């Protein structure tokens, strides 16, 4: 992902009313990409956590100890961002929960409910283009959509969670 793509990605996130709503502090996005998600692990490992400031501080310090290059001056800002976005107010995963019938129900359960419950989805009244944007955002955060089934999932969301 280029820096331009990354900027667009974060900008898109800013207009989301889902969990990933806040633009990270200037430069943090690039630093997270360069240090965390492009080198050691994917973005989903971050997005699935539900930690407070103390918990994120421990995790960031552990990562720094393991070689993540985060300047001391950036560390506090990064922790504040992570704790603000990925904390205990986020819905928990619920992949073993029943879901509406439909062709892509299995994808919905593994790719969507595997990360969060259906509440934020049920609240998101949107059209096909809106669902397509939302799915793309989730993919950017590490959601895996099985090969060739993205359109099926968008159709399922549109049908199951009416505007």
């Amino acid at each position: 992902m280029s820096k331009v793509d990354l900027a667009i990605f974060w900008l898109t996130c800013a207009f989301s009313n889902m969990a990933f709503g806040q633009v990270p502090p200037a430069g943090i996005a690039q630093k997270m990409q360069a240090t965390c998600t492009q080198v050691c692990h994917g973005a989903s490992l971050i997005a699935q956590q539900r930690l407070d400031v103390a918990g994120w501080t421990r995790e960031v310090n552990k990562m720094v100890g393991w070689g993540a290059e985060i300047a001391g001056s950036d560390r506090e800002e990064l922790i504040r961002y992570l704790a603000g976005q990925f904390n205990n107010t986020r819905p928990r995963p619920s992949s073993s929960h029943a879901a509406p019938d439909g062709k892509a129900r299995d994808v919905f359960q593994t790719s969507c409910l595997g990360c969060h419950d259906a509440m934020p989805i049920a609240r998101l009244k949107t059209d096909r283009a809106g669902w397509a944007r939302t799915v793309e955002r989730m993919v950017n955060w590490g959601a895996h959509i099985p090969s060739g089934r993205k359109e099926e999932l968008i159709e399922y969301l549109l049908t199951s969670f009416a505007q």
Partner: protein
Amino acid sequence: MKRREFVLSNAAFLLQARTIKDNLIIRSDSPADFETPVQLLDKGWITSNDAHYVRSHLSVPNVELNNWNLTVEGEVNRPLKLTMRDIRGFQEVTRTVTLECSGNGRAFADPPVAGLQWEKGAVGTARWTGIPLRDVLMKAQVQPNAKHVILNGADMPIRAVPDFVRSIPIEKAMHPDTILAYRMNGAALPVLHGFPLRLIVPGWEAAASTKWIVNIQISEAEASGFFMQTAYRIPNRPIAPGTLVDPKDTIPYTALSVKSIFTSPLDGAMVPMGSSIQLRGFAWAGEADITQVDVSTDAGSTWNIAVLDNDKARYTWRRFRYLWKPPAAKSFVVMSRATDSQGRTQPMVASWNPSGYLYNVADKIQINVKG
């Protein structure tokens, strides 16, 4: 390896990995950590290779068999360097084993804890074929002072990330059921599951079952790194949820707890009034046997004994079933609670630890009956 073979082996790996990824819940793309949806666990007593959960700590290595060796060294009289042909020369055995990641259920920890947020499906049962580890150790002539067997895989850390190195006590290593496996459910061991050779430590939390093994070190001391001295440990005393614990106040754990999960119906399922439904799932207990599974359809007020399927082996889960006809059109809280041959029963309240290990509270689902 010739170029054509290299291309084919990589293509096969990518295809295999893609199929597995498409079936499972991707907790982490890299390292590869994939969870089995309970709907797939429900399909049978044996978990297929495409559906079995995957746990990795580092990047998955692409091992070329032509260049692969297993070295055995340390406190032995005869250090070994074995090829796969040598490995195949030992007496072959098959063990059916339920493996469970010790963090299975971490997503339900309250307060939340850091780590992969596994729900119910970091567990699976497969037939593992290989050779007893003790046969290799005996060939190497382990010295009397040996107390631990340290295992290292071909997966390599980057930067200052600690290598994933674990050890098991010599007694467990010498147990005839502890094996070095090269086949899974009759097929060549998939790359994501440790090709070409992995350890299977039956009944123990699955982090002991090192994948992609290349080196075995016989030692007087257990492995010294992060994944033995800091991770995979629990507090040495009960603690209040949310309490931090110094590593010196922790102990390593080995055998799995007693546990059960529902695999059908799903939590929140809607069923019609007037018909009977089969409540089913799996129960397992590490080195112990499941002796009974109780099911409650009234949120734990009363309990009924479930039927256990005949499929069983020394270290595997048991399928339980309970046929139930809902008495009214309303929502029911249905629970399962397993008991094992060591007298352990699943707790009704989850015990908490800072890493979310060994979550085994009685399982609970809601079933909505409509008139």
